[in-house]
């Protein structure tokens, strides 16, 4: 499989979801982690672009539109590194199941669309721990766009890939940008060993499939995982 990442030598497990905006991956990950927790397992969560250490820099850079493809890529890698070193690795050592909403693959897809070379970006994230499993929520572009463009607030500058100059129209730029990212995900899916979930299906069906795969992969190793509550019958020492 992927030779780019660091093998997970810890007790904990790492579950990753990937997909374009509007693929429904965050909803699915939330349902999955709730279920794992209900099984008494210690579950932690880490989201793309959420490190407190880097937050102010990213926010300012975005507001002032200061980013180039290189600095955009590097600041997200910095954010990722901070979560890796300060959060994900310690939790994996402790034996937790870490659920990550987006992972290095997001950078492989997005940054390459921004013109960064695939070789450079794969090297950049070489410090990342290899996920125990990575789910790719594969969805037709129109379905994802419908979910995003329909409701919620306006699409932001970088989210729409406006920095690429694909179109002056935000929605059109978003459409083109997401389409290109989708292509990148599709082309790496096999190489990265993604578990592909048909994200056009119902939420319930997708969740069922996700849980089936998690049990299949984790099942034999579940006793390594840290428990949030003491198993029944265990006495307090």
């Amino acid at each position, binding site marked *: 499989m992927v030779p780019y990442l660091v093998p997970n030598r810890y007790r904990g497990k790492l579950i990753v979801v990937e997909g374009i905006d509007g693929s429904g991956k965050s909803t699915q990950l939330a349902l999955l982690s709730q279920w794992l927790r209900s099984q008494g397992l210690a579950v932690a969560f880490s989201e793309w672009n959420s490190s407190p250490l880097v937050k*102010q820099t990213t926010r300012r850079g975005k507001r002032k539109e*200061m980013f*180039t493809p290189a600095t955009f890529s590097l600041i997200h890698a910095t954010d990722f590194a901070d979560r890796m070193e300060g959060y994900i690795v310690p939790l994996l050592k402790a034996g937790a199941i870490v659920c990550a909403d987006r992972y290095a693959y997001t950078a492989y897809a997005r940054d390459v669309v921004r*013109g960064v070379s695939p070789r450079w970006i794969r090297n950049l994230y070489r410090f990342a721990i290899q996920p125990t499993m990575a789910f790719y929520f594969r969805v037709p572009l129109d379905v994802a766009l419908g979910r995003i463009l329909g409701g919620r607030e306006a699409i932001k500058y970088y989210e729409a890939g406006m920095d690429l100059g694909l179109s002056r129209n935000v929605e059109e730029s978003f459409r083109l940008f997401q389409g290109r990212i989708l292509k990148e995900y599709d082309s790496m899916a096999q190489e990265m060993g993604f578990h592909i979930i048909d994200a056009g299906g119902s939420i319930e069906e997708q969740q069922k499939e996700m849980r089936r795969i998690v049990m299949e992969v984790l099942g034999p190793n579940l006793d390594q995982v840290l428990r949030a509550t003491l198993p029944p019958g265990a006495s307090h020492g």
Partner: protein
Amino acid sequence: MANHWPPLAPYGDPLPGVDLTGLQGKLIVIEGPDSVGRSTQVMLLKSWLEQVGHAVLDTGMARSALAGRGIQRAKDGNTFGPVTMTLFYATDFADRLENEIIPALRAGFVVLTDRYIFSLMARALARGESRTWLEELGGFALAPHLTLYMRAEVNDLVPRVVLGRGRFDFWESGMDVRLGPDMHDSFVRYQARVITALDRMAGKYNFEIIDAARPPMVIFRDMRRSITRLFRKTKT
């Protein structure tokens, strides 16, 4: 004044979307460990170059508009892992390269930079990070026209720290990786590693080694001579 310098090129993949043609200026790097006296030399060189009639941009690590403040905040906090630090500095470097250094070179400036990608790599190597990872990561850096490596032994640095700032700095002592029981011991071991890492880069990246254990004005004379030679060599 028609100069024929070899065009500036990156070590690896170029920065995406950045035009590297028509860079008229000269890129001169001053490298060396902490407290070796780099900033004094940059100051002296800048005013000399300006007196001779060159427009000079001086820049240095963690001074970018994008990441400078963020790095300072991260250093003031208590969690700043080695990989995170390397990447934050790389962000800072890329921002300065794209928004300061390359535009200045295009405008025909002499860019005098206090540290470059090499210090970033040396610090990361001193913290045990992978050389191949760093080389590929920093591949977008332009190979400078001249890199002056101010070389000294750790024993030369210690008195400068004591007489200068009067105390050891947490990060310059590598206290995040804690190589000794106190700041002094950690400083000695950490800076020795940084120096070793820079020494190992000297051949590959064409450093011109300047003995920095000598008095500042003697060092300055040597550096000025190297720069003069460089200008003369490439002038028609």
